[in-house]
């Protein structure tokens, strides 16, 4: 798409006016006149233009935050927290490691719970939906406390990391099970009948017909859930895991600072969550097809 000047291009990002649907009226309108771009190019401008928008937004948001921060009289003591950068790094790696392992657990267990929910045998269905409802309906904090101090204790498992990642994974598995169930149930009856008609058995139907189509529909919800999981890993401090948030709390009290650790903390989370969302969007595009 070649356009002569930035002024004309900028028209393309304006919301579409009803007048555009009527060529006669559009010619009368000074604003709409000259807009030769289609609605599609208006919603997705070129890369340099997007970069420009991003930069402008960044400057605006930074300015706003700068104004807010400077309005509050707080003496920032960055050198105090800098000493604890190694501990910060270790905390970040623990958060990352536990979360990645818990993500694996949550996806696998979520898938099993979804299958359980669709099982032929009634007790299996009851068990799966019961687990999903109880886990979704109660706070993660309580599950961590009871899971570690009662259940793991009774079973003589004294490994907070292992127990923590399993509990965290199980908590999000319940949500994922519902996301997966929604995606699987959205596959139409005609697709299932066609799968039977070409001679697929149940297993082949899941593998070749349901899962490939459900995957795309489950992706956006799954990404959001995995991002939540990463952030929920901060609760693992209650069972004695020194993950990133706990490290930052220790760092803040050791250096007599109150807030300094929390800004790098937010950035450390964003370093993981933003690429995760980006990756998910790319996957969505790869699986995209019209139905």
């Amino acid at each position, binding site marked *: 798409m070649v356009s002569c000047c930035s002024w004309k291009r900028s028209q393309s990002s304006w919301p579409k006016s009803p007048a555009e649907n009527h060529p006669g009226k559009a010619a009368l309108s000074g604003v709409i006149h000259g807009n030769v771009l289609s609605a599609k190019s208006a919603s997705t401008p070129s890369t340099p233009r997007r970069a420009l928008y991003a930069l402008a937004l960044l400057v605006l948001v930074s300015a706003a935050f700068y104004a807010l921060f400077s309005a509050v009289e707080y003496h920032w003591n960055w050198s105090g927290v800098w000493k604890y950068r190694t501990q910060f790094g270790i905390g970040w790696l623990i958060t990352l490691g536990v979360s990645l392992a818990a993500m694996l657990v949550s996806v696998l267990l979520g898938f099993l719970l979804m299958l359980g929910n669709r099982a032929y045998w009634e007790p299996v269905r009851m068990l799966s939906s019961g687990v999903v409802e109880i886990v979704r309906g109660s706070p993660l904090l309580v599950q961590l406390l009871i899971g570690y101090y009662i259940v793991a204790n009774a079973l003589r498992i004294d490994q907070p990391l292992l127990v923590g990642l399993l509990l965290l994974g199980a908590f999000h598995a319940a949500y994922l099970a519902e996301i997966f169930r929604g995606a699987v149930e959205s596959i139409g009856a*005609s*697709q299932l*009948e*066609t799968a*039977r*008609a*070409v*001679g*697929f*058995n149940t297993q*082949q139907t899941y593998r*070749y*017909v349901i899962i*490939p*189509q459900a995957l*795309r529909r489950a992706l956006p919800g799954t990404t959001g859930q995995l991002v939540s999981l990463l952030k929920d890993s901060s609760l693992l401090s209650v069972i004695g895991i020194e993950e990133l948030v706990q490290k930052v709390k220790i760092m803040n009290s050791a250096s007599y600072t109150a807030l300094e650790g929390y800004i790098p903390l937010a950035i450390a989370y964003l370093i993981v969550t933003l690429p995760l969302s980006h990756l998910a969007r790319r996957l969505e595009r790869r*699986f995209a*097809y*019209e*139905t």
Partner: protein
Amino acid sequence: MKLETHAVTKRYGAHAALDGASFSTGDEARVIALLGPSGGGKSTLLRVLGSLLVPDEGSISIDARTLPHDEDGALIERRANGFVFQGYNLFPHLTALQNITLPLREVHSMSETQATQRALELLHRLGLETHENKRPSQLSGGQQQRAAIARALAPKPRLLLLDEPTSALDPVMTGEVLDVIRELAEAGQSIILATHEISFARNVADWVVFLAAGKVQESSTATSFFTKPQTALAQQYLEGLSKYR
């Protein structure tokens, strides 16, 4: 081929789609048309005959062989059949070619090369040679339905079952698809076809089963059905359909 059903009943909840349907065809029926008003049980009978559905009661035999009532037996049975449905029931995430090769490989244990060769041969025969790598959404309705026919024919089915294959198509595409079905019938393929295309049935079918309200009202050679229908329902049906054609 001789088809015979005895008191076949299939219920969906309280509604009986087939309510004691009994009929038998002649020994040499090859292209059987299921006719009758919508909701009369054509689609259900077609599925039961193809072992896609197992009836609640009654028995079906094809050439004196009784069809199994258990799900495992029905799976083996329907793997020998080919189905084409009313909607475009291709798998939307697969290309036309993959739609055909996947069942060949996974259900009929063909090698990748054999399956591709067979699929290309059929796509070519059905005039889709330039569309093999397109997804269903990139094909017209008629092309999709021809691809679906290619998929059904690929494993060389004993019986090809078509459930109103043209009722979602415009007249031009309907013509395309009916041409293909006629060619298959002329080439000797055994076919069961549920349809509203009455003139097509008259030209191509050699046996007609007429259903209404879940029961078989009439089962006779196509010639006798179209020249002198026995029941009043069938007469009304034929008159109604020929009113505007």
